[in-house]
């Protein structure tokens, strides 16, 4: 007998099974890893529009105890609370603006990466829409409750449908259903109604392509099925989600990011806003600010194997005879048409073009430090 609890199901579970998806356990959920095949799904997303079920993730609302208000002060109040846990400028968010940030521990280690959105609507101030990772959501929410206590109410929304529509045709597909989505730029979000369902539509994603993430009430399964009838849209599994984000140079929590790594080591220094550096008021600020000033001992970099062999997570990286790091994500990039990877190396080997050796199954293979992303981002600025 397994010690693991039974896998949870998203509202779209039966749809995946009916479509013939190959299912696997992921973040405690029974999720589709592929439909017609990773390669085809990856390419479809880069050329058309891929639909991803990401309902296993952790969307939630963090709201001041009296409920949402209409005044600007309410936003500052709730932003100050979450800023005790993250190094991003949340107070400075415009209405409807979203920002990627990280939850930090007291040593400046990354507990999760998350997107925090200030609601666009004037009567929804004093509230933040937050999406955390599926595998970490219980811990993240426990931490928020522990640190914020009665100062804010946390409402989890992970019983709903969260889908991502990604690719160059996502804009046409989404704006035909949500007219106002045309007004959204990259990392902007609004509440919108489609067929009597109130949704949160955000222009963001995890593929490097233009696209949207949409939070839909669980009763909207039928509408998602209809969306799949659109000839521009195909369902995409976790396999292609991983190869797409790797080509886009985006981190996967638990692999490229973990509590032992700081944002500076993770090459995510840009997440630490200027005013927060000056205030030095986030967890682990002393260590992180020292690393910004003096450099971190290790750095996350892109790694380009120079032959055809993929280098997977855990592959050791050498410079000459010296081990200088490890691959944290690696595989085959269908758009690059070759192997791609990222990993951490000692700081003196982090420069683009540095020659490295990867030990793949005991065999040395040549590689070099590569600029990220491997495939240019195609965001709507």
């Amino acid at each position, binding site marked *: 007998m397994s010690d693991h609890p039974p896998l949870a199901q998203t509202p779209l579970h039966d749809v995946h099974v009916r479509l013939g998806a190959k299912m696997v356990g992921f973040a405690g959920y029974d999720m589709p890893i592929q439909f017609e095949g*990773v*390669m085809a799904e990856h390419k479809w997303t880069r050329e058309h529009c891929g639909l991803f079920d990401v309902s296993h993730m952790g969307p939630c609302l963090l709201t001041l105890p009296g409920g949402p208000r209409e005044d600007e002060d309410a936003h500052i109040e709730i932003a100050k609370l979450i800023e005790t846990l993250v190094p991003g400028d949340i107070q400075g968010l415009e209405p409807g603006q979203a920002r990627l940030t990280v939850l930090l521990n007291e040593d400046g280690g990354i507990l999760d990466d998350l997107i925090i959105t200030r609601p666009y609507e004037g009567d929804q101030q004093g509230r933040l829409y937050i999406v955390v990772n599926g595998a970490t959501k219980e811990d993240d929410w426990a931490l928020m409750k522990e640190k914020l206590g009665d100062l804010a109410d946390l409402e989890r929304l992970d019983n709903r449908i969260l889908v991502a529509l990604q690719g160059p045709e996502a804009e046409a597909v989404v704006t035909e259903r949500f007219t106002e989505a045309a007004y959204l730029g990259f990392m902007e979000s609004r509440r919108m109604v489609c067929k009597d369902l109130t949704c949160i539509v955000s222009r963001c994603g995890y593929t490097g392509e233009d696209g949207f993430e949409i939070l839909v009430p669980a009763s909207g399964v039928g509408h998602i099925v209809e969306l799949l009838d659109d000839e521009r849209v195909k369902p995409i599994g976790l396999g292609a989600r991983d190869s797409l984000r790797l080509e886009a140079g985006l981190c996967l929590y638990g692999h490229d990011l973990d509590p032992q790594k700081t944002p500076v080591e993770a090459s995510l220094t840009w997440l630490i806003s200027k005013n927060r550096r000056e205030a030095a008021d986030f967890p682990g600020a002393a260590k992180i600010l020292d690393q910004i000033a003096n450099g971190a001992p290790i750095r996350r970099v892109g790694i380009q194997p120079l032959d*055809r062999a*993929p280098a997977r997570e855990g592959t050791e990286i050498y410079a000459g005879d010296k081990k200088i790091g490890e691959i944290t994500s690696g595989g*085959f990039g269908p758009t690059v048409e070759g192997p791609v990877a990222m990993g951490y190396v000692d700081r003196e080997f982090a420069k683009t073009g540095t020659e490295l050796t990867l030990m793949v199954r005991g065999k040395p293979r040549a590689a070099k430090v590569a600029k990220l992303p491997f495939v240019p981002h195609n965001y709507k600025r």
Partner: protein
Amino acid sequence: MTVKYTEDHEWVSVEGDTATVGITSYAAEQLGDVVFVELPEEGRNSNKGDELAVVESVKAASDVYAPVSGIVKEANSELEGAPETVNQDPEGKAWFVKMLITDPTQLDAMMDADAYKAFCADL
């Protein structure tokens, strides 16, 4: 010429003292898009069950085990430049290695085509 199959989804085509080894259509289908094949060098002496080759899909790397003990006579170097052949013609052009069989009695325990078909149907 006889063709035998293993529970690890390899096929072994025997002609005289030489076994040609590959992975079955079932295995290729399960792996998905093959993007890389690592083959053994000629002359390698393998015992039955040793790692013989590695086949990588977009998702993961999988080992191919030596179905019989023997010496590698030839590896199919065409697969290095065209790994997708493993998906297109797994039981034909995409053979992995030819081996000189050192213990032919090991073949006796393997499945024939009908037994292998039944084996897959039960999976």
